[in-house]
């Protein structure tokens, strides 16, 4: 076969059948600029959990873990082509650039344009798939129907097995949501404002109820399809990567405790895969909102992700992470450290014998390291050096653990100024709360 390449006839043949109509480059480029711009505030980038196989010689598969193909200059994972179908919208949500009262350029992709962009980007290994959202034009169902049409065309006409994330439109009908679930891997409904009262203030046309109804429908369908699959193997997949949502942080005055309780509620009652926290980026000079030019609350956003991990992977409950009389996360130290400092009586933890649950609660020990410790301690009495090599951040952990060798740092456990001591010792790490932001947005690397 490869003689043909070696023979220098290489460049003369043009055998490839053109799959796509020529798309009008200039027009598509302009739309892409506008509609990528408008979609970027949705922070979800996950392409995990799809697990779609390429069984029939088609294009693409979606692995269970997902891949970040690049990172934006703000350091976020780029995994999907994330665009709006259109930024025409009949609503006026104050926190959103697309709101009807905003004087901006509007554009709308055709279904074919989105399909072509997705296929062409996917073939070049730029993306794992498509994340399609939209402003609401005409009404909910009209919009949802268009989104579904893109997904359907990709799946049925182009045999596309890459990842598809569709935005659920508030108030969309059950029929459309069912179709959406058959073609999409993930569906998401953004609460945006964590409390109903906040929402009423900023988006008077919307209510949480409109959002909850489709979410509830999707949750139940997922369960039904899963049950059927147990009996009939050929049952199609229904939104195999589940549902997610996003809340905006810092647009309205909710406390962190309120926010993580909302997250906890939705994890439990709607089986959400992820809750995303998006620090509010000022987009409007509206008296109800932080002014243009105010700082995006990045540290707070980061702390919320950490709190979220603690609930999902470390066995913490929302009301352990924060208390009613102290409802904001400490910006100086991460929430696990903060919990440890409030609960010094639970320490030191004996690395050699403590149960996994307690090892997971030691600051500086991640999930993977915790499991490695459990394995390694069967062979040896572990010292500080051993667990450091395993990947534990010993500069934080050392204040809270007993190990096989002497550990002088333990002397400080009862010190009143323990927090200051630790802060001083670990200053550089804490000063850059984004050093592990990748991990915060991406489950898999977090568990490493």
């Amino acid at each position, binding site marked *: *076969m*490869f003689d043909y*390449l*070696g023979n220098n006839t*290489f*460049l*003369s*043949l*043009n*055998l*490839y059948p053109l799959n796509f109509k*020529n798309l009008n*480059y200039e027009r*598509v*480029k302009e739309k*892409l600029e506008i509609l990528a*711009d408008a979609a*970027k*505030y949705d922070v979800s980038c996950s392409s995990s959990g799809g697990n779609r*196989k*390429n069984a029939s*010689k*088609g*294009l693409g*598969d979606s692995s269970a873990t997902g*891949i*970040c193909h*690049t*990172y*934006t*200059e*703000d*350091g*976020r994972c*780029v995994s999907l*082509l994330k*665009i709006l179908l259109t930024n025409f919208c009949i609503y006026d949500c104050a926190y959103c650039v697309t709101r009807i009262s905003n004087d901006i350029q509007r554009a709308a992709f055709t279904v074919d344009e989105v399909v072509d*962009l997705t296929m*062409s*980007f996917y*073939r*070049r*290994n*730029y993306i794992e798939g498509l994340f399609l959202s939209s402003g609401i034009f005409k009404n909910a169902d009209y919009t949802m129907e268009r989104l579904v049409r893109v997904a359907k065309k990709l799946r049925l006409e182009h*045999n596309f097995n890459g990842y598809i994330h569709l935005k659920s439109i508030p108030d969309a009908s059950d029929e459309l949501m069912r179709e959406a679930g058959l073609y999409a891997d993930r569906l998401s409904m953004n609460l945006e404002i964590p409390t109903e009262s906040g929402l009423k203030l900023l988006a008077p046309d919307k209510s949480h109820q409109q959002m909850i109804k489709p979410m509830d429908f999707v949750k139940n369908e997922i369960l039904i399809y899963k049950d059927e699959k147990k009996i009939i193997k050929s049952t199609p997949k229904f939104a195999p990567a589940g549902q997610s949502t996003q809340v905006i942080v810092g647009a309205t005055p909710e406390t962190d405790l309120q926010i993580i309780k909302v997250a906890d509620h939705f994890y439990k009652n709607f089986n959400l895969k992820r809750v995303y926290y998006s620090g509010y*980026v*000022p987009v409007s000079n509206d008296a109800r909102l932080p002014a243009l030019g105010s700082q*995006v609350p990045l540290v707070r956003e980061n702390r919320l992700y950490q709190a979220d991990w603690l609930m999902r992977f470390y066995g913490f409950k929302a009301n352990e992470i924060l208390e009613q009389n102290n409802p904001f996360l400490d910006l100086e130290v991460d929430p696990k450290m903060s919990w440890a400092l409030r609960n010094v009586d639970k320490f030191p933890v004996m690395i050699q014998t403590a149960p996994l649950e307690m090892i997971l609660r030691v600051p500086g020990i991640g999930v993977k390291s915790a499991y490695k410790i459990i*394995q*390694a301690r069967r*062979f*040896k009495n*572990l010292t500080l050096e*051993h667990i450091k*090599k395993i990947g534990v951040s010993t500069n934080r952990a050392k204040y809270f653990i007993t190990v096989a060798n002497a550990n002088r740092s333990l002397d400080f456990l009862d010190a009143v100024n323990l927090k200051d001591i630790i802060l001083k010792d670990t200053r550089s790490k804490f000063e*850059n709360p*984004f*050093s592990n*932001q*990748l991990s915060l947005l991406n489950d898999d690397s977090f568990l490493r």
Partner: protein
Amino acid sequence: MTILSYDNTLEGFFTAVFEIFEYKYQDVSIIGADKAQNVLFAEVITVITNDEKSDRVLARLEKQLGKEGVRQILYAFLSETEDAENILFRAIKYAVDNSGKNVFADFSNPDVLKISKLVKSVGREKHRMEAFIRFELLKDGIYFAKIYPDFNVLTLVVRHFKNRYQDQKWLIYDFKRGYGVYYDLENTEIVTLDADVEKKLQDEDGIYDDKEINYQKLWVEYFDHTNIKERKNMKLHVQHVPKRYWKYLTEKKIF
């Protein structure tokens, strides 16, 4: 000291391991044939790769360390790290001396730990290739990607790309090591290109499909517009996309 030289293949390495036990060599070191010429003051024994011996070592290791253990050995081997062979041999000996135990979980052993580090590095490079490889459509319908990976990971990513891109022909070529993998819509095979073709593929613009540049520009456009300027953080960006990978990335091209 006895020095065994092998043909730089995994089978060759396993054969050498077999023979160390077979002939009870003491104070022994394994080196790749490419390095054997540099040995001045010791006798070099050339190991002839033997599939039967290699398979026996493989079976023995798989029995004790499982598929996962064998994967780790393969990854560490592909790291092409100076002395990887001897680190691996010591770990294998440690396994044989403690038969029945999954010694690869014993991170307090320096060789096991070193291997786990190598496995991690190679795994990361594999993952990066899966993420950062960019195909460009050539005039004759082949999606083509140039790579220069730090470790010899091309064969490790074949399955990933084969599963994913079944309806397009593709060629991924490692210009650092001078070989590639080609998929012809049915099978993949390892290929090496003539020097003049290699050069053409590296340097010439005329080889691309007419629409290729437009799609690349659209991607660059997308990359710029999906970024939130208010959150700019180049330090974090570079941490995720180290500069040495920029040459792969369409979005870093300047048109």
